[in-house]
């Protein structure tokens, strides 16, 4: 197989890339940076940055990083039949516009989660950065909620690259039991359980799900009247 995707299961960007590759029907080998695979050390020699995901194209001896760049690379060079970039939308470049907006939101949500998970005496951001992040997260989530209140998918009737970037964020919020304030996002996430690519992606990142369950997910998710997150994960054979 000529394509390897190096991903970190805890990263929203990595999950977005996995989802996009599965959705586009691209053949690739998923390689988790959390595993002790023999290729891992060799990979870290050629990619010493702490930024993932990274797609290695062995045939063309090329290395591509960043989920939206990887999706575009796959579309242009590997799976041009994929509709992820060509979805019909209401105005030109809406798919790219929303993909970039979701990518920005993903970075903010990840940074806030990292801050929360790190020890209090090792903050990665200043208090001002955190407040700015919280403001930006809420403003972007409100925009996404509004967008989805009138559409099936982020940019209209067609599933697109923007949805690949939105899904891991919405799932992460659901695991933190934050979707109660966003009914359209809840309805949106429900649609993903019907998509094989989404369930395959979750299967690859399930260590993250275990961690969520340990930290805060299980008890919170099993409360409430709607189908619980953990039950769903079990039904999908992810947990």
């Amino acid at each position, binding site marked *: 197989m000529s394509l390897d995707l190096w991903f970190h299961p805890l990263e929203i960007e990595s999950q977005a890339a996995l989802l996009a590759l599965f959705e586009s029907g691209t053949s690739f080998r998923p390689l988790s940076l959390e595993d002790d695979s023999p290729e891992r050390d060799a990979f870290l020699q050629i990619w010493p940055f702490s930024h993932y995901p990274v797609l290695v194209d062995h045939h063309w001896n090329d290395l591509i990083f960043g989920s939206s760049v990887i999706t575009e690379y796959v579309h242009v060079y590997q799976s041009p039949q994929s509709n992820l970039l060509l979805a019909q939308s209401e105005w030109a470049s809406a798919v790219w516009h929303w993909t*970039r*907006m979701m990518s920005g939101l993903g970075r903010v949500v990840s940074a806030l989660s990292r801050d929360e998970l790190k020890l209090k005496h090792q903050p990665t951001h200043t208090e001002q950065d955190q407040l700015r992040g919280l403001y930006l997260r809420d403003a972007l989530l409100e925009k996404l909620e509004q967008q989805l209140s009138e559409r099936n998918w982020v940019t209209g009737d067609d599933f697109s690259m923007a949805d690949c970037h939105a899904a891991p964020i919405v799932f992460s919020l659901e695991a933190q039991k934050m979707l109660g304030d966003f009914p359209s996002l809840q309805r949106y996430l429900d649609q993903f359980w019907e998509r094989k690519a989404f369930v395959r992606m979750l299967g690859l990142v399930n260590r993250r799900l275990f961690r969520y369950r340990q930290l805060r997910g299980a008890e919170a998710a099993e409360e409430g009247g709607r189908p619980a997150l953990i039950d769903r994960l079990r039904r999908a054979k992810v947990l």
Partner: protein
Amino acid sequence: MMKLWYLKEHDTSLAIRLLIYESELEVEERLLDPESALDQDAFRQITNLPNIPILQIPEAPGILHAVMDIAEYLSRQAPPERQMVPTDPEAGFQVRRWVYFTGTLLSPPISRARRGAEATSYATLTLALPRLEACLRDRDHVADDRFTFADCVLAVLLPVLSKLVEWRREYPTLAEYLERIRQRPAFQRL
């Protein structure tokens, strides 16, 4: 009429303005003074997002916040020979790829170094700069055989880096590249 809201001495604001001058587009420029309450109020009436620069456009979605969205929209307004983001899928991909590279691996460590000169910032830079040096040994511009938005983004960052650390001796191809860009009339307008 398109209207660009931007900050002075701000990397992405400079990159977008360089694109505008290179493309010879007519865009109203509105400098935002972060210290001015009047300016802050005027800005908040347009958007509740803190991103800058933004471009107001006369069609949906009305405002563009992401720098690559702004660059692509402006590029489409220019005649083909002056488009800074090519419409050809492969050439366009290369531009977006290098803009992402610069925006992710070069710009953040430079910003951090500006604020506190952390050792980790310089460590990242010493990993990123050799890749740009190698890329420019094979061609005159970063992403294509002609000047594109990828060059706009890189060209406005390198002078900032020069103020922080001496890098020119170690990366002579990159230094020559910057000198060539400095000669461009559009760059001199900034």
